[in-house]
């Protein structure tokens, strides 16, 4: 019984902050992938996950209670805030651009070192320095 009461007071709270929970989860997991993984492609995936959390962070507060998509129509009077959408469209495009550049550099590194593992690249660099 008490568990049911606790969940009934927790549930609206959870629903209200659902987008924030997802945002924080995506941010934390993206950042962790960037730090903990040595593979450069996986780092880029982590960076994309992190970026997604930023998109969500901006888009979610743009919602107005009872508002529709920001497209004018005679039958609606309340619209969501269009400004976050505009900002995030720019952010998405720039995010794709950085991802493409990162992948390109990963391709070049693979050609130069034969690997895209960060620690192996560092070891190769150290080896080359010692030989000099």
């Amino acid at each position, binding site marked *: 019984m008490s568990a049911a009461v606790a969940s009934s007071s927790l549930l609206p709270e959870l629903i209200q902050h659902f987008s924030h929970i997802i945002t924080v989860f995506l*941010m934390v997991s993206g950042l*962790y992938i960037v730090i903990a993984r040595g593979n450069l492609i996986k780092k880029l995936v982590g960076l994309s996950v992190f970026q997604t959390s930023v998109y969500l962070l901006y888009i979610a*507060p743009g919602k*107005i209670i009872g*508002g529709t998509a*920001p497209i004018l129509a005679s039958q609606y009077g309340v619209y969501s805030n269009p400004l976050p959408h505009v900002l995030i469209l720019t952010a998405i*495009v720039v995010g794709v651009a950085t991802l*493409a550049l990162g992948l390109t550099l990963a*391709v070049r590194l693979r050609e130069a070192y034969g690997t895209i593992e960060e620690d192996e690249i560092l070891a190769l660099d150290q080896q080359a320095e010692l030989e000099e």
Partner: protein
Amino acid sequence: MIKRALALLLVLALGGLFASLMSAYAPDPELNPTARYYAEHTAQDLGAANLVTAIIVTYRGLDTLGEVTVLFLTAAIVGLVLAQSRRRIPHQPVPGGELLATGTRLLTPLILLLGVYVFVNGHLTPGGGFQGGAILASGVLLVLLADPVKPFSHGLISVIESLAGTLYVLIGLAGLALAGGFLDNRILPLGEFGQLFSAGAIPVIYSLIGLKVGAEFASMLASLSETEDL
């Protein structure tokens, strides 16, 4: 191992900090003054139904020009960096299967059509030049997957890209001469609200952006696909 545990602790602490910042959030009951200005003035000023498109193409058109420039630079740098790695010996990639080849023939025209639909209707429905351009590039990606040996016409792509970019800037300059300022959409009649041919130059500008973005993404994908498997 210690490094990973430390990283985990760090990101968890950061996540906790972030979550506590957002715990006091409550949704807004109404638009803030800036957004309300756009919501109230877009229809009579610009004649576009999609507020996001109106802001991107006209109110903040200069930013969008900068954004397209960022994409152009990226496509150029990707091409430049990967140009050194393209070897003379053509490699023999595994050809795509029958299913992929037939599916590509069926789907590519439809995908391209959807992309064009999305950017031509950018001022009326969700979507626009960037989204439509990405859809166009996904059609190109399908072709590249199905037939990796097929020679890809970088010349055609760069002609489309530079033509669209030049026309975009010229339309912006026409706005300076004929209407209120750079990238003003009222160089063409606003027309009837909600029709395809309305909102002045917005559909034209967004179609050009769509073509340009599609061409840029396509050239990036082609450059990446032409690198050699080691």
